[in-house]
């Protein structure tokens, strides 16, 4: 998660200080340094390119408002990751989104085998996957997204979600089970 900015800690520390004091150029530099990282995270978590801009704005505005209280206990990238995760969580919970998903009839089972080399299959699988993800409870979805989509370790996910490691682990597995069922994928336990 280390960004270009964080590879130059000394220079960046002064930029950060200036941004904390409301310096416009410094804030712009931070935005440019982390824009792509945050945008990618949003897209990975939502699968919805059309919402990236809105959420990106929300994330950076929230971050800049809270920046004066950022004490550097974590790297700025990690801090932004947490803010982004929270914003995306709110986005999932928004009624507009939920209604739209419900109107679309929920998850669609995959009818053909998944082939990562095949763009079309992956694209359809992607839609079905995010539909199925939207149908999960927030707790299961958060755990699954953190672990399987974002690739966080159990410890990182536990810290991010404020839940014990064992709970995160259980929720991830349960979410996977439900996703497999919704997507028509065989669950390993059933094959044994």
């Amino acid at each position, binding site marked *: 998660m280390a960004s270009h900015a964080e590879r130059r800690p000394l220079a960046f520390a002064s930029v950060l200080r200036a941004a904390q004091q409301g310096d416009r150029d410094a*804030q*712009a530099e931070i935005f440019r340094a982390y824009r792509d990282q945050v945008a*990618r995270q949003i897209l990975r978590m939502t699968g919805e390119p059309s919402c990236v801009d809105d959420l990106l704005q929300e994330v950076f505005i929230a971050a800049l408002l809270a920046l004066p209280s950022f004490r550097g206990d974590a790297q700025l990238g990690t801090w932004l990751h947490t803010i982004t995760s929270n914003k995306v969580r709110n986005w999932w919970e928004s009624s507009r989104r939920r209604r739209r998903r419900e109107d679309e009839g929920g998850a669609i089972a995959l009818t053909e085998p998944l082939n990562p080399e095949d763009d079309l299959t*992956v694209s359809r699988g*992607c839609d079905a996957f995010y539909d199925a993800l939207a149908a999960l409870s927030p707790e299961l979805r958060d755990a699954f997204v953190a672990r399987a989509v974002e690739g966080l370790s*159990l410890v990182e996910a536990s810290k991010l979600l404020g839940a014990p490691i064992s709970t995160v682990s259980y929720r991830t597995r349960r979410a996977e089970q439900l996703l497999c069922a919704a997507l028509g994928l065989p669950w390993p*336990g059933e094959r044994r």
Partner: protein
Amino acid sequence: MSRPDRDDPLESPELRRLIQGMRARQPLPVVKVTADQIYARWSDRREQRRRRVRRALAGVAAAAVIILGVARAERSVFSDSTIAPSAPARQLVAGADAPGLDAHAAPLEITPQQDPTPPAPPLDRDIHLSPRGPGVPAPEVLAARVLRLGVGAYLIDHDGAPLRVHTVDGELELHAGVYVVAVAADRTEIQIERGAATWIAGGPASASAAARPLKPAASPAELARIAEAHLTAGRREQAARALRRLLLTYPDAEESQRGLLDLARLHRTLGEPDEARCAYQLYLDRHPKAPLRGEVTAALDRLGPGPTCRGLRPR
């Protein structure tokens, strides 16, 4: 079944392949937002936030007066003590259990003085006096219960013998209670949260102005409506304050019976079990034959043991 990575959370190879394929093929999102847009919206939000803070700060002083007043009123209500007007007074200025201070006369133009007051004998310990606002000079203490106020506004709260206060208009006697005394260059105004004030020497040129009654006490129904409105808007702290005012001002009103339960629930919601317990306890004490007695007792049991209560306050 082997898993490719020790920390890989996925057991389903198909799902893993799908997510990996999505990651690999997910394009870099096209970001249209610019740093300038972020800056503009951040500036707006920051300004909104500052406005909110300014409004909140402006309300803090008034809230402090109300809270102090409520605490004092509570003490007097639940200890059955009464406020006894003292000695003969030349001119009774006002006296009330007024719940609010906001409907008072036009604001005074106050020019804070900068000159410090010399060291003085200590005030009696029951007297709590604080200048309101920056630049208001500390009062001059002439004796244990005698003060001289400079130009500015002062919150005065005491519960002992009458306090004598010298102002530009003359000498004022404040009986046990809570007051805001605002002294301008040419006149003095008194807001009485609780108690009674008397001019014992001098007095304002326009007696009628100084004797203008404060905002009349809101009726129980009004206070209940105010609390309800705060509750509906999710302003729990304000709702709790309105309910406390209702309960203290009109302990026997019909609205107060329901108000006690509302207050108990509010305290529970606010994570204040001791206060909730006191509200429930007071309900049982005040309304021993209430039909909801069983439910209230059950709620008390659920809250478990806690400190004893003095009225609505845990000791």
